[in-house]
């Protein structure tokens, strides 16, 4: 015992807390996972650290607008950047921003754009996604600042084709990109920061590059330190203790703890994702009756769930496309909370209450199992609330919790009745993969197994509409159709909450997985009073 006391005294004597507050010299980010690679094309979901180093031809801002970065302008039909060819293909002309240099001083040119498309098409390494690239037949480079991308067929999300940036030809040409660890661990970029140190398991340190192309005054913050803290509670504890200054994507159930911190501000933006209950009509045939689906939607009191479990941090939604998207349609069928309507619809559909209160038809009870992710506290609570509310209208729902890695193969195989989960999408409003009749796994993610000819036709037409106004019109019709069919029960938008220093200026957040660091060059800490 005496030893312990002595040790404690000794320790306290030599410990001076060295943590300083956030400053324009150093901003410390508490980050939930360590990236696997810094190569943006090979990475999975995470792009926050990468996007400080590697810039896309465009990025998407806090309202999901497409903003040019390495491109001088965003090509559209109107500005002549997109031309539909008579053979059914299309040509997209990217004009690059002049004067942009890689961090090694070499100019960023159209050859890098061509190299990127060619490398992904070649298929001798493992890019995460080849979406869109597989529709490119070739890329021409008439001059060093012009790249013409030839598509075999119309591809509506073409503006985001190079969101993840370009690969430097002079570094990667002729190499096995999977094994190019010099690049994958410390990539050559054009962005405001470069990687100076990656201490595995601990942190990545980024440092400002001199002569950033936006001007020598950018970026304002000299060094960014991303500390990897996987455990959410530990991460929040570090924020409270001042050991980290910024935590992106604060879990909703941690907000109460952070709200009271004087040096921390919570930045909230809508997320481009929606929490919902997928109703798998192939696995549980009663869901194939639209009256049953509508009844379930009426039976769930979303506002109560949002007010109580979610502390009103999120807002309810009525469809798969989120309010900040240019393709959003607000005027759709809705299913306000009404047990009476739910009961009436279920009665109409022939589901009668039995002696135990559970409805049944032809001797089969209206009972199903909802799967959701274990350890996600909010989801577990929401699942319980839904269970209770459905019981009130005579529907029996069991909840089964599965861990994050185990749940994916279950839903992909279609072996479940219902699932509480979300989709988090990029800025493009494509929803074909969720609702087109032929997009059930393995072709896509239609796990409602909804097959509606009208909806499918609208969705495929929207994918081929290059003109944004025309595409928006088709997608709006599709949203109205989805709301009528209600193949899944829409709950709420997945708000993104980032905890940032109260003195940080120009932090804007981001609804998509591209992350809030898209405008990191502008961030600045106000000097202490």
């Amino acid at each position, binding site marked *: 015992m005496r030893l312990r006391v002595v040790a404690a005294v000794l320790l306290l004597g030599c410990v001076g807390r060295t943590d300083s507050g956030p400053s324009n010299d*150093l901003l410390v980010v508490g980050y939930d996972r360590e990236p696997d690679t810094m190569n943006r094309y090979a990475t999975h979901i995470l792009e926050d650290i990468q996007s400080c180093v590697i810039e896309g031809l465009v990025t998407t801002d806090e309202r999901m607008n497409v903003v040019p970065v390495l491109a001088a302008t965003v090509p559209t039909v109107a500005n002549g950047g997109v031309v539909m060819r008579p053979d059914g293909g299309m040509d997209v002309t990217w004009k690059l921003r002049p004067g942009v240099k890689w961090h090694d001083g070499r100019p960023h040119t159209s050859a890098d754009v061509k190299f990127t498309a060619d490398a992904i098409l070649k*298929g001798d390494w493992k890019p995460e*996604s080849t979406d869109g690239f597989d529709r490119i037949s070739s890329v021409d480079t008439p001059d060093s600042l012009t790249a013409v991308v030839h598509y075999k067929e119309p591809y509506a999300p073409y503006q985001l084709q190079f969101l993840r940036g370009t690969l430097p030809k002079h570094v990667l040409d002729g190499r096995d990109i999977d094994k190019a*660890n010099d690049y994958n661990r410390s990539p050559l970029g054009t962005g405001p920061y470069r990687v100076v140190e990656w201490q595995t398991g601990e942190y990545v340190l980024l440092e400002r590059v001199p002569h950033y192309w936006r001007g020598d005054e950018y970026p304002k913050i000299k060094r960014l330190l991303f500390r990897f803290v996987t455990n959410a509670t530990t991460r929040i*504890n570090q924020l409270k203790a001042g*050991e980290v200054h910024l935590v992106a994507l604060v879990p909703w159930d941690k907000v109460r703890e952070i709200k009271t911190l004087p040096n921390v501000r919570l930045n909230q933006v809508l997320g481009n994702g929606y929490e919902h209950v997928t109703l798998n009509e192939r696995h549980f045939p009663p869901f194939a009756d639209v009256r049953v689906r509508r009844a379930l939607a009426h039976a769930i009191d979303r506002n109560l769930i949002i007010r109580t479990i979610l502390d009103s941090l999120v807002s309810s939604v009525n469809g798969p496309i989120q309010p900040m998207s240019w393709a959003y349609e607000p005027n759709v069928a809705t299913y306000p909370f009404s047990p009476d309507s739910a009961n009436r619809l279920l009665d109409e559909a022939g589901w009668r209450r039995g002696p135990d209160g559970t409805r049944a038809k032809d001797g089969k009870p209206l009972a199903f199992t909802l799967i959701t992710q274990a350890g996600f506290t909010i989801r577990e609570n929401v699942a319980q609330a839904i269970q209770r509310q459905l019981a009130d209208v005579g529907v029996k729902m069991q909840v089964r919790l599965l861990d994050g890695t185990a749940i994916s*193969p279950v839903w992909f195989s279609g072996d479940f009745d219902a699932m509480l989960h979300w989709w988090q999408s990029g800025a493009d409003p494509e929803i074909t993969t969720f609702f087109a009749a032929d997009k059930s796994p393995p072709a896509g993610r239609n796990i409602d197994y909804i097959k509606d000819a009208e909806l499918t036709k609208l969705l495929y037409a929207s994918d081929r509409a290059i003109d944004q106004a025309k595409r928006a019109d088709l997608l709006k019709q599709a949203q109205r159709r989805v709301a009528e069919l209600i193949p899944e029960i829409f709950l709420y938008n997945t708000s993104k909450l980032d905890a940032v220093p109260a003195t940080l200026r120009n932090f804007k957040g981001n609804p998509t997985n591209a992350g809030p660091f898209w405008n990191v060059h502008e961030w600045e800490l106000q000097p202490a009073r």
Partner: protein
Amino acid sequence: MFVIRRVAQIIPLLIVVSLLVFGLIHAAPGGPLSLYLDNPNVRPQDIERLRRQMGLDQSLVAQYVSWATAFARGEWGFSYADGRPVAARILERVPATLQLIGISTLLAVVVSLVVGVASAVRRGVDRAATIATVAGISLPVFWFGLVLQLLFANTLHWLPSSGRASFAGGGLGDRVAHLVLPVIVLAAAHAAGWSRYLRSSMRGALEQPFIAAARARGVSDARLATRHALRNALLPFATVVLLDASIMASGAVVTESVFAWPGVGSLFTEALAKRDYTVLMAFLMCGSAAVALLSLVADVAVHALDPRTREVASL
């Protein structure tokens, strides 16, 4: 002879373990690519392509054979997650874990020696120690770690909450400060268990006739406890400590995750969540080999410490 025979037994054991572990890891639902499914921007066709590129489309037997032959040659393969060599990924994490386990073991041994002996000899100490040790054994590591963080880092601001060092680099003091909480958490359960163990073997030893004889010769109580009883109780204690070192390693997995300690344990947690098969296999094989070797060391140590076991072992 004894040592060689024991080492020879380890090899077939490891082969059986590798088969079991390989089967279990692949039986667990999900795979290295299942997290990709949740991202709507990665099309299923891309996931299928990646599966082929990673060789995950081959039969389990083929995958095992290619893994096992490479592993036997000392090639541990590449991580499914980041494509880097598995050996490098594990080795770079070893120092942090050894540091944590080493210091925790040391602290636990010292504490359990003091507490164990004191509670065997003094009734008053025994009561307090019983309460403390029961608490130590039953506290969940996860919860205990978070409570210490809340108290010492967030409320009192005495110690850093987690991590291995401050970025600004406070030198030795800073590194030591970062060690305090994880070491206490990891050491607590073991110190508790070991001190109970030592207490009962001390009690047993103190009841032996030779103690009564020594007391009759006028040997002081303190000398009786430390010189006579403790020497006898130390042998089983050392065996338990050595065997428990492997359990300490599994405790480190949780402790490292709670304290964001950049060791092998947090790598394991990460690899498990990502179903990074090659990293998991290498980790579990090293773990099994370490357990086998530690029990060998324990046997040899007992062999060396206690002459009575020698004849039996060499038969």
